């Protein structure tokens, strides 16, 4: 045996400090310490500068200013608000405007997006191409341009109040915005609402009974329940001595409409722009979902004797939903964030209100924190809802 060819394993004492420095664990700790040090140093510098500039303006960090009088008017509000209210009130009005604009846009863009997405997979060549054209055009144009252009078209190209476009309702669309009727409660309203609650219970029970007699698909059961509920509700409406709601219909007085609910041009503009700008993404998601179901599945369903409805309901829909819902969540999240673009057309949503407060009080840092909290909360709520929905529709795998 030749011992010289075997290298001796290095003993502990032989380990020099340089090799110790090259140990991966030590490097890991050193790198992180260095990183923290650099971060702290940069943070310190920035904080120092900020403290200096704030001191120059005579400000100190803190949220006390929220209770001061805002001193500015908000042009569009769905709750009463006055110039003398506090900054906090103004922020509330802004949040409500943001939520309202995004919620309406989410509903409308989903309806339009699903329609276009289904058209996109149609076997009819022209229908298919029309959907493709719509998606391709609006997906490649900046959303801000779409919003600004819709607002301009509403203000400059819609007829004035005298020749307003009459929609169902009656609602009126003019360059002053959209006016829709508003339901007003009467003395019988409370009774009616209680009756509705009772009817709901009755309808659910009846639907359960009907379904237990025959093997029915749960969707049909839901339809039957809804039918029962609607019939009862209609009957009650006319049986009550006085209708539970009357409509406050907008009427033209002088240069504008009064009564009803009014949506000013800024509001209509942002909703229109958001719907046009977001629905292509929804449509594309729906298309991808529908196309993700293999053709063989549909052929197999037909071979088993399923008709169009059953194939759609039991084979395509559940599998497509699994692909559609997760990206939909992020579509909705980005739509909510994009509603901030409304501040460009002077719609007082949260970013617009916040920047007004910032310019009046100079509280840039605090307002940024508030905005982050508000948008994170909105995102979180949307995600929670969509996760709940996803759990409802997802396939239970065995």
């Amino acid at each position, binding site marked *: 045996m030749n011992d010289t060819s075997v290298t001796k394993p290095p003993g502990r004492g032989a380990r020099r400090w340089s090799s110790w420095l090259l140990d991966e664990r030590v490097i890991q700790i050193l790198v992180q310490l260095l990183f923290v040090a650099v971060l702290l140093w940069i943070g310190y510098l920035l904080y120092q500068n*900020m403290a200096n500039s704030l001191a120059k303006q005579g400000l100190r960090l803190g949220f006390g200013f929220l209770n001061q009088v805002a001193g500015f008017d908000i042009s569009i509000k769905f709750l009463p608000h006055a110039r003398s209210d506090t900054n906090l009130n103004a922020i509330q009005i802004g949040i409500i405007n943001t939520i309202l604009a995004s919620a309406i846009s989410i509903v409308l863009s989903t309806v339009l997006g699903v329609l276009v997405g289904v058209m996109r997979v149609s076997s009819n060549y022209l229908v298919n191409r029309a959907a493709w054209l719509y998606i391709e055009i609006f997906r490649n144009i900046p959303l801000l341009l779409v919003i600004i252009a819709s607002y301009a078209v509403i203000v400059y190209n819609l007829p004035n109040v005298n020749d307003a476009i009459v929609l169902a309702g009656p609602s009126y669309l003019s360059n002053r915005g959209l006016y829709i009727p508003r339901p007003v409660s009467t003395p019988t309203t409370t009774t009616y609402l209680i009756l509705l609650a009772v009817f709901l219970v009755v309808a659910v029970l009846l639907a359960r009974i009907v379904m237990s007699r025959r093997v029915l698909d749960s969707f049909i059961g839901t339809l039957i329940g809804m039918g029962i509920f609607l019939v009862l509700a209609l009957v009650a409406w006319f049986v009550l001595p006085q209708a539970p709601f009357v409509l406050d219909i907008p009427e033209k007085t002088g240069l504008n409409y009064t009564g009803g609910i009014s949506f000013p041009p800024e509001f209509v503009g942002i909703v229109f722009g958001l719907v046009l700008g977001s629905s292509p993404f929804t449509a594309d998601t729906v298309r991808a979902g529908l196309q993700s179901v293999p053709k063989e599945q549909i052929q197999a369903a037909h071979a088993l004797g399923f008709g169009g409805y059953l194939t759609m309901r039991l084979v395509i829909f559940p599998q497509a939903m699994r692909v559609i819902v997760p990206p939909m969540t992020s579509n909705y999240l980005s739509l909510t964030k994009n509603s901030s673009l409304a501040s460009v057309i002077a719609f007082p949503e949260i970013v617009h209100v916040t920047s007004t407060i910032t310019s009046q009080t100079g509280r840039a840092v605090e307002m940024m924190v508030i905005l982050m909290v508000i948008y994170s909360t909105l995102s979180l709520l949307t995600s929670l809802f969509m996760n709940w929905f996803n759990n409802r529709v997802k396939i239970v795998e065995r």
Partner: protein
Amino acid sequence: MNRVVDEVLPPPIERYSVLGWLKKNLFQNWLSALATLLMIYLFFMAGRAMLTWVVIGAQWEVIATNLQLLMIGQYPRSEVWRLWIALGLMGFFSGLSWGIWIRQRLGATLLVVGMPVIMAFLPFAPPVRLAWVAIGLLTSGGFFLGRRYPQRLHRLATMGWLAFVPLVIVLVRGVGEDARFPTVTTNLWGGLLLTSIIAGIGIALSFPIGVLLAIGRRSGYPIIRAFCVVYIELIRSVPLITVLFMAQTMIPLFMPANVDIDRVVRAILAFTLFSAAYMAENVRGGLQSVPKGQYEAAAAVGLRSSQSMRLIILPQALRSIIPILTASVIGGFRDTSLVLILGLLDLLGIGKAVLAQPAFLGRHIEVYSFLAAVYWLISYAISYIGQIIEERVGVDAKRT
């Protein structure tokens, strides 16, 4: 008697006559037929209305008069030659790259090489047409060079694109006080020029930052990981518009009193920091798609973790997300329009300014359609290039 089927027939090849095609795609059943008729009616009405408007109704003087403003803003007219040089460089490198890497697509090739020629035939002022002719020559020269010596020139083309953005900035901005090459301050930049500069720098910078953030988010260093997670999630929780606003009000607050950062630089900074967070999430998706075995194999052959990331993991990760990267580049390009909120006169901002000219009040549909067409064309071009890259190096690309 058993008959053995020893020959499996291929499925029948679908062949249609024109009538058969019509029947299958337009009149399959009465519902489809109804939809077809409705669509024909709608296409006809919309097409007629649009054509009538474009040819007769629209008054395009607003674009013709302000074309230069829309393209370059208030950039000094005496210095426009620098922009032409930048455009020429772009044409040359595009042609070169096209000749080296893209060979089959005849139609698109003709378009790339022929685009400047088409521009030269449009009724611009004679010097402009001359400039387009020069750019056309440069582009086709680059194309033929690239086609002739692809092996020798592909390194040059790569280096050229890497140096392109800094080179263009130097050209556009100028250096020093020299009278022949004076500095053009950023408040004079505008129009498509400003839009492309913000998009170009923003996207070019946010990509490496995003990759670093994504790697950091998956790294074994808990502090670095926490920092990356917090950064990405904070930025992604707010809209771009607030980041821009705050960059406007907060960057001066955080800077020493004597330092003043230019407005355009502030916008680019905000834009970069914002897109980097989104880029990081895209890259993270790619990193997750690389199987664990690849990491282990890289470690097994003795690569350090930085080497394994650079040589094994990142190339595969990036290859798998090319379509997503293309989409986010397009998204970034469209999002640059938000800088108008800061009062910068980018393409959209200049468009709004043009509409405020007393002579062109109420010409908003013309202006906005023109802007939409420009944005659309550029977005479409980016997505086309993305498709080509995907075809050549993407996951499904055929290896040769």
